[in-house]
């Protein structure tokens, strides 16, 4: 079987799709909509810091961030090529998309650890 990187990118895309589906809506609902609108109060800094102090929570958060970024990168790569007819620049678009995901992943890792 000829080696290609696509299956690994697809596994990251799929894993990220599951993570994004299961976790992101509730997080953006709470932190992005309900708390800023004042429907529910912001938790205290101490409470949220306590959650982040748990190394397992930070690790899980990093995994979710990396997977979701690769999910988004993969879809943005294909969608931009289909929408704008720029599939001939696939290598460049792939570098930009996955490169962006890697930058985000490193930022997250440096932030959390």
């Amino acid at each position, binding site marked *: 079987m000829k080696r290609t990187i*696509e*299956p690994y990118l*697809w596994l990251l895309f*799929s894993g990220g799709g599951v993570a994004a589906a299961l976790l992101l809506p509730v997080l953006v609902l709470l932190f992005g909509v309900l708390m800023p609108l004042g429907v529910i109060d912001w938790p205290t800094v101490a409470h949220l810091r306590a959650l982040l102090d748990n190394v397992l929570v930070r690790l899980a958060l990093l995994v979710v961030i990396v997977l979701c970024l690769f999910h988004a990168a993969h879809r943005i790569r294909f969608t931009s090529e289909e929408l704008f007819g720029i599939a001939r620049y696939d290598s460049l678009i792939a570098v930009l998309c996955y490169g962006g995901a890697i930058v985000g992943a490193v930022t997250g890792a440096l932030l959390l650890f």
Partner: protein
Amino acid sequence: MDVTDTEESVRQAAATRTIRLEVARYRPGQDSEPVFQDYDVPLTADWAVLDGLNYVKDRLDGSLSFRWSCRMGVCGSCGMTVNGEPRLTCGTFLTEYGDGPIRIEPLKGFPVIRDLVVDIDDFLAKLSSVRPWLIREGEELPLTTEYAQTPEQLDAYKQYSMCINCMLCYSACPVYVLNPDFLGPAAIALAQRYNLDSRDMGDRFDVLNLEEAVWGCTFVGECTRVCPKHVDPAEAIQRGKLTAALRSVLPWSKR
């Protein structure tokens, strides 16, 4: 008024009603790009779009070209774009479109040879590229052994074997229409049909695990929706992705 008279009057009324077909014409040497030509054909409840086209060919304009054969959804040769949607014209009835008009164009995504006839050479090359036959190893001629299958073994691939090569799935697939190098729904489903057959000893992942094969698919799902035989090519492709991915991660595992 008795029943027979009513039926007769309905029939007469029906015979006088017509519906307009807007047919794409492309005559090489004459047209630089397709132009539409209108024909009025009788609108009767039991006429398919293909019957309307045959009426045009027989009575109105003998120069109109289109492919057809069985008139019963088995041969797969009468696929066209009907009001923007890829359909088998023998199974699409005129009455579906109310008072009309009905716009009939060749299948999208293929070069047009003439009028409604498209060039299928590339599609046929794609089909044969996946080695659509039972691959056996270590057997001497003559082949005399029978290989019985359980109902479960038949079930594993039967759905994918119903394809009639009508190419509606290619025409409905934006990935293929935008990039004709994509191996496409029917060929991948056919490869999976043999991969999932208990009698087959081949392995078609050399042709499936490619950017232009399963990895080109972005799961639009239109192939499955338009398939007149309920083959579900979209499912075949996603399963191909999963198998190819698992085998890339676990190189020692078989499917």
